[in-house]
């Protein structure tokens, strides 16, 4: 499986670390809503089809990526930085650096 890191380009899956279901919403830090905390820590979606996942490019630029992966085909339809980056998400002047 190849994941196209928006910064580093297409790389083998062994360079990445799976960081879990990307649909989880963390409650506000001070929240006392235990149900919400429980859901955040333990509940995971297990869809047959497109899944919103977080991967870290741990063997590369170390950015966390939001990856939409089809769990039936492993087809990856989108990869974006999780953290909104200022300016362009593309590799800066990749050609010049080579």
């Amino acid at each position, binding site marked *: 499986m190849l994941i196209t890191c928006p910064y580093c380009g297409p790389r083998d899956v062994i360079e990445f670390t799976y960081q879990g279901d990307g649909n989880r919403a963390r409650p506000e830090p001070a929240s006392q809503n235990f149900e919400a905390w*429980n859901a955040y*820590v333990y509940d995971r979606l297990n869809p047959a089809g497109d899944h919103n996942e977080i991967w870290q490019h741990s063997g590369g630029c170390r950015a966390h990526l939001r990856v939409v992966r089809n769990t039936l085909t492993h087809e990856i339809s989108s990869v974006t930085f*999780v953290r909104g980056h200022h300016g362009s998400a593309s590799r800066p002047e990749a050609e010049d650096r080579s």
Partner: protein
Amino acid sequence: MSPRRTDTGGRIDRLKTIRFTFDGTAYTGHAGDTLASALLAKGVILLGRSFKYHRPRGLLTAGVEEPNALVTVLKGEVREPNIPATMVEIHDGLVAVSQNRFPSLAFDINAVNQLGGKLLSAGFYYKTFMGPVVGPLKGTRFWMFCEHFIRRAAGLGSAGSAKDTARYERMNAFCDVLVVGSGPAGLMAAKAASDQGARVILADLEPRLGGSANWTGETIDGAPAADWARRTVAQLEGRDNVRLLPRTTVWGYYDGNTLAALERVSDHKDQPGKGEPRHRHWAIRAKSVVLATGAFERPLVFPGNDRPGVMLAHAAERFANEFGVLPGQRIALFTNNDSAYRAAVALKKAGAAIAAIVDVRPEPSADMRELATEAGAELLAAHAVIATEGGRALSGLKLQRFDMSNGALNGEARSMHADCLLMSGGWSPTIHLASQAGARAEWDAARQAFLPPKPAQDGPVQRWIGAGAFTGSFSTAAAMAEGRAAGISAAGATNTPAALPVVDAVPGDPDPAPVFEIRASGKSFVDFQHDVTAEDVRLAHREGFVSVEHLKRYTTLGMATDQGKSSNIPGLAIMAEALGKPIPEVGTTRFRPPFAPVSIGSLAAERFGDLRPERLTPMHDWHLANGATMYSAGLWYRPMIYALAGETVEQAYVREARATRESAGIVDVSTLGKIAVQGPDAAEFLDRVYTNMFSTLAVGKARYGLMLREDGLAFDDGTTWRLGEQDFLMTTTTANAGKVMQHLEYFLDVIWPDLKVHVTSVTDEWAGAAIGGPKARQILATCVTGTAVGNATLPFMGIVRGRIADVPVMICRLSFSGEMAFEVYCGAGHSTHVWEALLDAGKPFGLVTYGLEALGTMRIEKGHVTGAEIDGRTTARDLHLDWMLSKKKPFIGSAMMDREGLIASERLELVGLIALDNRPLNGGAHIVEEVDEANPHDSIGHITACCYSPALGKYIALALVKGGKARRGTRAHVSDPLRGRFGPVEIVSNHFYDPDGNRMHG
């Protein structure tokens, strides 16, 4: 020249003689021969013994699907079993032996198994090894004793135990178009795709590219098809955008169009070339794939169809045309389709006499009648072979009239002399790779075969395109047209009409008659390699196995090393008939990788032995040069003890710890994880990450911190130093450095992207030495310049910057040992220099170096926790660290840490233990209330760390014990049945030594 060898033709070089041995006998062959063709040319028909019955077996095929002629190839002490003789290219010095026979291939004592054939039927092992359920032998060892011999009697080759000395290699490759199979379809596809400028890889498992063009005897553009193939290959070879991979089996089709292939680089040479591996594993990532993998011919199922001399029709055609070898002198053919007629003509041309063509169909076409005449063969339409004759080689066959509408045999049986019988039961496209890629095969009633699905107009995009016999297009002209179209389309271009090479082919209808089996008395084999007969399949049905998956497992049909390449469809057809269902309703099994056996060596390639990287501290060489015994802690190597001559481990660490508490000791702590946490929001971030406050920490001070996981359990601990308003240096435990880094990055990237904080791993940039003991401050005072180290300048948890031996250092006064102690950090490159300066300064004060054992001893005496206690199951409360849980702010884990289960009273809590029998304790030993050596039970906890305490003069331990805090002052017992250690202990506080911390506060 051997009488079976033709004078001209084929891929062999008759001027080059090659010497090899088979079962100890020396033979010769020619360059280009396989072991199969070379032995066949010498008249060696008997090549193996069958799996269960030890029946004599010869060649069934000429290629990768061979089920019978499996051999073991010996290279020195190294043996590789179960290789089809058809896939072994001979070379000088090749040593091959036959398998599953004793004492010899010609006389095999286990052939008596044939007499007990009824006993060895389907499910034999399941039934037998249950043992008698009644009677005198029930439940006795006798049955186990028999099992040993029964299991030994069945089998294939035996694996060797010698170390494989060959070298293997792994390659990653990328291409626009991968073409699998180099027959007319594959060659056309590779050519067309490369014409479009695509980067093409063409792989074929045979040594010579060209596929069926090498043996059909057809002509393309007026020249022999083999010549056309050779020219096309030469043309492709010259192109920069084409890589040809002969001898390369594409065996796996994985997600994202990643395909796995095995290239046999040097098996065919007596010595590998310079730098050549034996095998090369290819991981090929292809934008698109053209599957031109051809088709396998099917055997017909009839009594005696496994006798040596009975072969598939196309295999004989291949031996004759590609290798110049005649499989027999007087040949009969038995077929349900037209393709065998072409074989008959080819063999006639090559010099054999064709006795008869036996066709199950009542009315072969006029074209076929003409071919039969051309072959000089008697044509017996509406006939079937009902038996074969001969011992270890075919001598003749029996025929009878056959009505294919009801399978009935009638009329007088007739005998016929022949030394070779060729059969053809139709063709099955080689859809394995498409099936691995998830394609559902569809039954085609006309072709009597499972075909790969046609690309749907509106369905999901297929990453592969089929061409040629793979799609059921069995004529060469159609294959070439499909190959060209597939190549263009795979390259992403639009097909435009163009003139195709003109093929002059033997006529023939590609559709066989729906006849798979002739039912007559005698063993009719379906799966040759696993000795599964038609009767076994019916027996499985009678015993209630109705699904094709169950049938496969119960009879083991298709589960041998050939994975049923020739047997799956006949087996399925017989099952369908027994069930009274049409074949598509019975369904087929899905193919899984590998397509053909793969050497384990190629998968490991260069990655064997200890693959872990070694992490060494910057003072590593000094430790080695100064008598340290090293210990591997995760990836790190750390000094365990610095033993003096004659010291035991315990004597060494006790001396080191005692000297530290009495004067001073120094230890290398460079392995601690170190993370620079910097930015305007760094303090806020640490408040959220740690359970305690860091925003209140003054610049130039350090604080001990505890992290929890999101689920509220303890995660890691360490000190964090505030070097500036926005600049922190976090330390983590050695083991968790990577995990903590990832944890911080996750929260900054995913949860709190608004925080302006940057984290950088600086573990390798800083070297650290901890120096502790009553004399530690005096030692520093003599060697540190640029700063005072007294209590006023450097109070407990204070940080100063200064120099040691002219090297800038950072010193923090903190203590793990419980003594007055300092951690001295400097740039890693200066570490040994600083370390030696500290030792020099310490010499007059009796400074000793100490290792992990003494470090552990002193921390146990102090009751500090490490990874053994923060084990992913304990909470801050369990470890008596609840004083660190801030109530003023939320932090990671704060919402979940108060859950019912995490605050229950009977949780495992950290305690200290003292051995009352004054004997060593063991890590992992259980704690029980009442000791019962014969029947240990009811553990109330376990030991996490233990040592001899020089400070207390006792054997002590840390332990996690149920409701531990409340048990302080009571007695319990250790129970360690594995090591036979039982004995009384006293449960005490985990703070054994100087609980008020007077020594470190000074």
